[in-house]
């Protein structure tokens, strides 16, 4: 409210300042004018770029052991030193990041799709379809996210596939709830009645008329969900339930380095910091994009 504190005569003739404020708000919506979003993008570009360019940035292998060069400190040959098996920490960091980011970006898609489909069905058809799907949601929601994911991966056995299955099985409920709520509101709109009056099938009305109107909300949620997913992947790695060794993974690196915390703090601390930075970057980008996509702001 730009009028507060302005002189009284600014009241009726305030088209100038008001228009300026409006222009400023509009400009504020431009993506490159949002400092938080820009900061997030910069962080992500650097991190993802480094992960993608891993083979160019380092000549070491992330898994080949060299026991004669174990536990070296940071130096010219090994930028961040080596671990107890003589593997270059910087190299493992890059390859670990590469793997974890790839899994995170893929794993966010499955719950998104599953939850959107089930949520649409529940919201559109109602009745017993809704009852069955929403009771399933209640069951999943009854457990904390990590407890269920860890239990599922434990049962399925460590590995990339288990991570996909576990996070999908637990993560879809949030999308289902969001989409169901949105569909419940949207299906009361006249354009849905009009589509029905046009003799279109339920499937077509859901897919072509309702989903494009409601998918934004699920998309906004996915932006923050990916942060949770990458933390889950790292947590599983830390617990030894992630990608089996010797493949580099941030979680297992943190765990491996713990034994040498008093002498070689960088083995644990640096991967931990990288996780924090990646999470921060994804959060900033997620929030920024959510603000841009959120209608009516």
């Amino acid at each position, binding site marked *: 409210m730009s009028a507060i504190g302005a002189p009284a005569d600014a009241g009726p003739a305030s088209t100038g300042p008001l228009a300026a404020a409006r222009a400023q708000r509009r400009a504020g919506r431009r993506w490159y004018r949002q400092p938080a979003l820009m900061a997030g993008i910069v962080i992500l570009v650097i991190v993802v770029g480094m992960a993608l360019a891993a083979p160019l940035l380092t000549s070491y292998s992330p898994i080949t052991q060299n026991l004669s060069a174990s536990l070296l400190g940071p130096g010219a040959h090994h930028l961040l030193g080596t671990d107890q098996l003589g593997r270059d920490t910087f190299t493992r960091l890059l390859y670990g990041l590469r793997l974890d980011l790839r899994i995170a970006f893929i794993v966010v898609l499955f719950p998104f799709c599953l939850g959107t489909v089930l949520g649409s069905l529940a919201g559109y058809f*109602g009745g017993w379809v809704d009852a069955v799907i929403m009771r399933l949601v209640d069951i999943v929601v009854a457990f904390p996210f990590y407890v269920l994911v860890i239990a599922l991966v434990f049962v399925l056995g460590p590995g990339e596939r288990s991570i996909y299955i576990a996070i999908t099985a637990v993560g879809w409920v949030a999308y289902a709830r969001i989409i169901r709520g949105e569909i419940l509101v949207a299906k009361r*709109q*006249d*354009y849905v*009645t*009009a*589509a*029905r*009056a*046009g*003799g*279109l*099938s339920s499937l*077509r009305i859901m897919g*072509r*008329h309702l989903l*494009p*109107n409601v998918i934004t909300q699920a998309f906004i949620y996915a932006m923050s969900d990916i942060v949770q997913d990458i933390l889950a992947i790292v947590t599983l790695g830390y617990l030894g339930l992630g990608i089996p060794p010797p493949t580099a993974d941030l979680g297992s690196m943190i765990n491996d380095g713990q034994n040498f915390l008093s002498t070689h703090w960088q083995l644990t601390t640096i991967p931990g910091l990288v996780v924090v930075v990646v999470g921060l970057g994804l959060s900033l980008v997620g929030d920024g994009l959510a603000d841009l996509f959120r209608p009516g702001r």
Partner: protein
Amino acid sequence: MGTETILEVRDLHVRIASRRGIVRAVDGVSFEVPRGGALGVVGESGSGKSMTLRAILGVLPPEARVTSGQILLDGVDLVQLRSSEVNRLRGPKMSMIFQEPMSALNPVMRIGRQIAEGPQVHLGYSRARAAERALELMRRVGIPDPERRFRAYPHEFSGGMRQRVMIAIALSCDPEIILCDEPTTALDVTIQDQILRLLTRLCRESGVSLVFVTHDLPVVAQVCQDIAVMYGGQLVERGEVREVLLDPRHPYTLGLVRSAPDFEYVRDALVPIPGSPPSLVSPPPGCRFHPRCDFAEDDCRVSQTPLRLLPGGRATACLHYERCLDAIAADRGRP
């Protein structure tokens, strides 16, 4: 094809389950629409006009349903059909134009694709051919520069243009009857006239029948040949439009024309109908209009009032319709 009557509704009952009880939204309505004809259905808000339309089209809200009666479209009873079979008729056989052209168009879909969707689904047109069809329809309903407007979204259109789009969608599969739910209520008067002329011209050209629901009497007089007056979920009067509006045979119709401005019915002042519409959960016994009626007698409060045929193909539900004659004469007698 063949029969003279395109749509016949027989003794239609629609009930709505609500928290206050069962609402008898439509209670024994019967009418017919001749092929190529236009029927106007008038009445106050909540008189069951829209519910009748939605029942015909089979797009009632989930808590409402047809409890008895027949809806014969070209001789086929829609009430008996399965929903998938009715679905195939919506579009190529009958279509609907809604009151709010703003909300009846999908906000995130391009105009052209919304018009092209019907032909694609029902007529088996390819994407390209359906787009051609959409452009042709946009030209027919008078949307300027259709090639450019094809890719526009509904919010880029004015109210009148949106209603033209709705008409194009309704016509897209060459239906035999179009159901209009107050199509001009949300428009400016000048635009309203354009849209009405367009609608009547297009329907005449292609022999499409119309059911026109509205509470705007001059509009009915402009568009329709026949009129059906609804009150409290029932039909109270039916007949040729000019006869009914200039010479009503039911006190409710008389009340409507007396309370409508700029209509040819002669009177020196607008006279509102006293009271408010009846509750359809527990409607008054006897004639539903009797609590608001000046002419009501004891028998109005007790006996059922079905439509009775009058000379000249008209019908009224009023037991004492002769009293309207005196009232009309008195209105005309005034200077």
